[in-house]
Structures are given as C-alpha cells and as structure tokens.
C-alpha cells in the first residue's frame, strides 16, 4: 500500500507524464529534455496555481 500526499502524487504524475511527452513529441535528445522539463513545470505550476485559487475561493 502506498499513500502519498496530494503534492507527492502531483509530482509523480508530472514526472512520468513529462518523460513520455518529452520523448514522443520532440525529435532530438536536447529538445526532448527541454520539452519534458517544460511540461513538468507546467504540470506542477498549474497544480499550485489552481490549488491557491481553490483555497482563496473557499475562504
């Protein structure tokens, strides 16, 4: 059984999805790494921004 925190789950999801997106959507290793990093930042950044928005709306 594995019970990660919400944020850990987001990080794991972003990591795995970004690796696949990077490899499949770009052609050269350098561009793959850059696009993978870009996707990872967007995944995690969007989760943080949306979390704060929901927190502020709920107050």
């Amino acid at each position, binding site marked *: *059984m*594995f*019970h*990660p925190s919400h944020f850990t*789950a987001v990080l*794991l*999801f972003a*990591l*795995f*999805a970004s*690796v*696949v*997106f990077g*490899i*499949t959507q770009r*052609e050269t290793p350098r561009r793959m790494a850059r696009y993978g990093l870009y996707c990872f930042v967007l995944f995690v950044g969007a989760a943080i921004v949306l979390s704060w928005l929901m927190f502020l709306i709920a107050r």
Partner: protein
Amino acid sequence: MANPQDKKNGAAGGFIYLPLIAGWLVPGAGHFLLRKWGRGTLLALSILGMFGIGIAMQGKVYAGAHDILEILGLAGDLGNGLLYVISRAAGWGADQVTITTGDYGTRFIVVAGLLNVIAAVDAHNLRTGRKT
C-alpha cells in the same frame, strides 16, 4: 527497395505494425525493436512506474462498463496492453475505491494506459520514418 530511414531505425523489412503492436502490449517494446534503447527504457520505466504506483495506491482496474465514465476508464486501462490482462488475472487493484489515494491510483492506471498508446504510436512513427 527498403526505405533508408527504415535501415537507420534498424527495422527494414518485416511487418510494419510490429513496433506499434509490441509497444502497446509491452511498454517500451516498440522502441526496443527499433533499437532505440534509451528512449525505450525511459518510456518503459515511466509507464510501468505509473501503473505500478496506481496499483500500489489501491486504484481500481476497470472490469466492465456500465456508464460512459466507466467506458472511458476501461478504454484507458486497455491501453496498458498485457499489464491490464495480468492485473485482471492476478486480481490487482481495488474493486471499489474507498480512499482518496485509491481514486488517484485509478487515474494513474488510466493515464499509464493512455501514455502507453502515445508511446506505441511514436514507435510506429519511427518505424514508418515519419519521425527520426
């Protein structure tokens, strides 16, 4: 005459859909067939990792489809290929999601299947020379 791109990918001749089917059945296998060892290993680790974590989080493996959401979930799960068959045969995952992490786990399993389909299509594009 063999396509030069096919030779470069180590896949001249043979069944053109083999990397697509192999990649769907076993994560990364399509890339391994084309001798893309690094890409195949990273894809396999990511997809197997996501599926394994989903199972460890007690995610649900869809067995039937009674409404539209379950149909979509089942379609995503089927993208895992043999992993789906093994998980159903071994009884992995939960029948009912009762905890929050189980719900996350269910999504992890579905998304692992969708990512596997993307990876298999990428292997097919490499095989046909649409991608290098």
